[in-house]
C-alpha cells in the first residue's frame, strides 16, 4: 500500500484521524468482537469497521459510523491495517473500565499510513496518555457472501429474551443447534450436553419476536465455542437479527445503542458444523 502523498500545506499528515469524546463508545463495541488477539481495521468515509476471525469459520465485525465520532477524517478511499486488538483495548481503557459518568475518557486517534503505528491520545481529567501501537499487514478476510437475496430464514428478536439463554448455554455441548421453521417449533435453540439435551423455544407470536420470516424448515448446528463470544454483543444490544442462507451459514446482526443513543452494529457470521436439513429432536 503506497504511503499517502500529502500535498504540502494541507495540514494533517494522517490518512486517518478521528476524535471521540467518550472512548467507551469505541471500546465497548470492540470488546463485543474481542475473541482473538488480532483484528483488521478498515476505515472509509462512512466510518470504522473492525473485523476479527477465527478458525476460518467465524467472523465478527464491529461497525462504528463516522457520525458517532466528533471528528472523522479519512484521506484515502480506504485505510486498512491489522492490529493487536487486546493491546488496543488495553490502551483505550487505560484509565480504567469502570463507568464514571462525569469523567469520560476523550480519544484522538491518528494513523499516518502503511507501516506507521496507530497513535492514540487519551485524556481524562487533565491527564494525557499517548499510545503507539504497531500495525501489520492486513490479513485476507473471509467473504461470507451473505446478501439479502440468499437469505432463507430470518427472525428479529429483542435481545432481552435471548441474553439469559445465551449466557446460560450448556457449554458441555459441542454444538448449538438452531432450528427455524414456518411451523412449530418456529425458532429453537438446542444444546446436547453431558446432562442431556435442552431446548429453548420462541414462538412466532411471542412479544419478543419483532419479525418472523421463515420460509423453510432448517436445522443447523454451529460449534458452540465459536458462537459463545457473541454473548458479549448480545448483552450490549437491544435487538438481534438472525438469518440463515441456503447453505446454513448464520448471520447474527446486533443493533447496539450507545450511551448517547447513537446506533452501532456488530455482526457475526458462522459456518455450519454439519449439514442437516431435516429437523432433529
Amino acid at each position, binding site marked *: 500500500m503506497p504511503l499517502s502523498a500529502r500535498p504540502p500545506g494541507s495540514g494533517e499528515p494522517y490518512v486517518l484521524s478521528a476524535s471521540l469524546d467518550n472512548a467507551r463508545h469505541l471500546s465497548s463495541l470492540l470488546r463485543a468482537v474481542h475473541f482473538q488477539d488480532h483484528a483488521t481495521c478498515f476505515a472509509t468515509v462512512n466510518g470504522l469497521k473492525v473485523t476479527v476471525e477465527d478458525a476460518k469459520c467465524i467472523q465478527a465485525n464491529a461497525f462504528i459510523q463516522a457520525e458517532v465520532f466528533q471528528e472523522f477524517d479519512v484521506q484515502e478511499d480506504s485505510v486498512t491495517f491489522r492490529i493487536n486488538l487486546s493491546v488496543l483495548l488495553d490502551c483505550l481503557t487505560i484509565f480504567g473500565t469502570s463507568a464514571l459518568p462525569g469523567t469520560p475518557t476523550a480519544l484522538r486517534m491518528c494513523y499516518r499510513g502503511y507501516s506507521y503505528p496507530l497513535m492514540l491520545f487519551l485524556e481524562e481529567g487533565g491527564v494525557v496518555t499517548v499510545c503507539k501501537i504497531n500495525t501489520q499487514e492486513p490479513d485476507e478476510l473471509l467473504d461470507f457472501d451473505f446478501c439479502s437475496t440468499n437469505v432463507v430464514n430470518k427472525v428479529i428478536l429483542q435481545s432481552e429474551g435471548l441474553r439469559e439463554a445465551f449466557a446460560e448455554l*450448556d457449554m458441555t455441548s459441542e454444538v448449538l443447534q438452531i432450528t427455524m421453521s414456518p411451523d412449530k417449533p418456529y425458532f429453537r435453540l438446542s444444546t446436547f450436553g453431558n*446432562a*442431556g*439435551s435442552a431446548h429453548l423455544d*420462541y414462538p412466532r*407470536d*411471542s412479544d*419478543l419476536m419483532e419479525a418472523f420470516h421463515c420460509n423453510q424448515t432448517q436445522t443447523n448446528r454451529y460449534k458452540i465455542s465459536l458462537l459463545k463470544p457473541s454473548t458479549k454483543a448480545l448483552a450490549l444490544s437491544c435487538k438481534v437479527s438472525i438469518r440463515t442462507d441456503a447453505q446454513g451459514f448464520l448471520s447474527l446482526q446486533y443493533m447496539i445503542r450507545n450511551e448517547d443513543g447513537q446506533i452501532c452494529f456488530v455482526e457475526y457470521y458462522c459456518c455450519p458444523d454439519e449439514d442437516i436439513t431435516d429437523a432433529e429432536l
Partner: protein
Amino acid sequence: SLCPVHSVMSVCPPQLSLRAVNSSRSAFASFLFAPLFFQLYEASGPPPHLELCRCKVLMKSFLGVFRSLPSLEKTVGKCLILLKPRASRLVVQLHCKYGVTKTHNLTFQECERLQAVFDTQRCASSLCAPARVLAEAVVHFPQTLAEVTLAAGPGGKISLRNHVEDEAEPGKTMVTELWLAEDEFQMAAVAPGSRITFCLKEFRVSSCPALPSPMSPLSPPPQPPLCPQGLLTFAEASNLPLTVHYDVPGRPVIFTLEDAVLEVHLVLATLSDPESNLQPPTANGVSHLPAPSDDFADDLESYMIAMEPSTYEEGSGVPPIPTFPLCIPDPAESDTEEEEEEEERAVLGTPPHKKFRSLFFGSVLTPGGRGLAPTLEVLAEDSDGEY
C-alpha cells in the same frame, strides 16, 4: 439448599421426594413434597410402574436448570416436571415470559431408594426456632469454619461455638461463642449439659439456588447458600420454623422443616466425644457409643465386626458402633440395579481424618425382603484389640 450436600439426587414418585447424600455419607437431606405442593400432580401408569420410577439425577444437571434464581422468579410462570422412564429422561419444562419454553431433557439412572435410617423420636433433645434466629446466629461464624458445637448451657441458654481441634495451638485459634436465650426458641426441650458438634464445612460449594417455592416468592440469597445455611435460607424464605433434634455426641443431628405440603429433613453426622471411649457398651449391643479410635477409623472390617453383636468380645477394644440397622435390598430386584445395590450395601463412610460417626444408609427393605444378611459375615477378626 440441597446442593452443597450431595452428589446425587434421587426422585421417587408417588410422593415426589428429592433426596441427596454427600460423598462421604455423613450427611443426608430429603425434601418430601406432597402432591398438593404442585398445581398438578399426575402419576400415571399402573402401580408396579411407579415402583420402578426411582431415579437419580446428577444434582449439577438438575440445578443447572434452575441456575439463575432471580431471573427465574421474574420470567418463569410454570414449571413442568415429567418422568419418562422409557426414554430414560427426566423432563423439566419451564414456561417463561413471552411464550418462551425451556425444555431440559435430563438423563437419569434408576436407583434404589435412598433413605437414611433415623428417628427423631429417639432424640433426647429438640429445639424449635424460627429459621431467622438460627440464621442470624450462624452468620457470626467465619466462612471457613468446619465444625460448630451446639450446647445446652445453664439457665436454659443454648450456645453455639466453633469447634477447635485438640491439636490446635491455643494461642493461634480464635473462638467464637454465641448464646441464645431460651425465649428465642419456640420450643426447647433439651437434656441439660448436652452438646453436639456437627460439620458446616463439608457442605460448602459455590453458588447454588434453593428450590423455588410456589408458596412464597424467594428472595435470592445474598451469598451462596451453605447447608445447613442453605437449609436456613430456604426455611427463612418459606417462613417455616426449623426444628433441631439431637441426642448424644456421635448420633446424628436432624434438622427438620414441616408444613402441610412439604417435609424437609437434613441429617448430619456429629462428632463423637473422645471421653466416652471409656464407657462400656450397653447390654443389648446397640450403644450410643464411642467411635473407634483413629486406628480403626477407616477399617471397614472392624465396623463389620461391630455390627454383629455376637462377635463383640469383652475387652477386645473393638467397640460396637452403630446404631442404625442395616438393610439389604431384596436380591430379587432386576439385574440392572445390582450395581446400585452394591453401592448401597457398602454403607460405611467416614469423613476422612475425623472421628465422625457415620450414618448408615440402607436400601429400604422391599416387602418380603430379608433382614441383616450373612453378607456381613466377618472374614477376619481384627487382631489389634487389646486383651
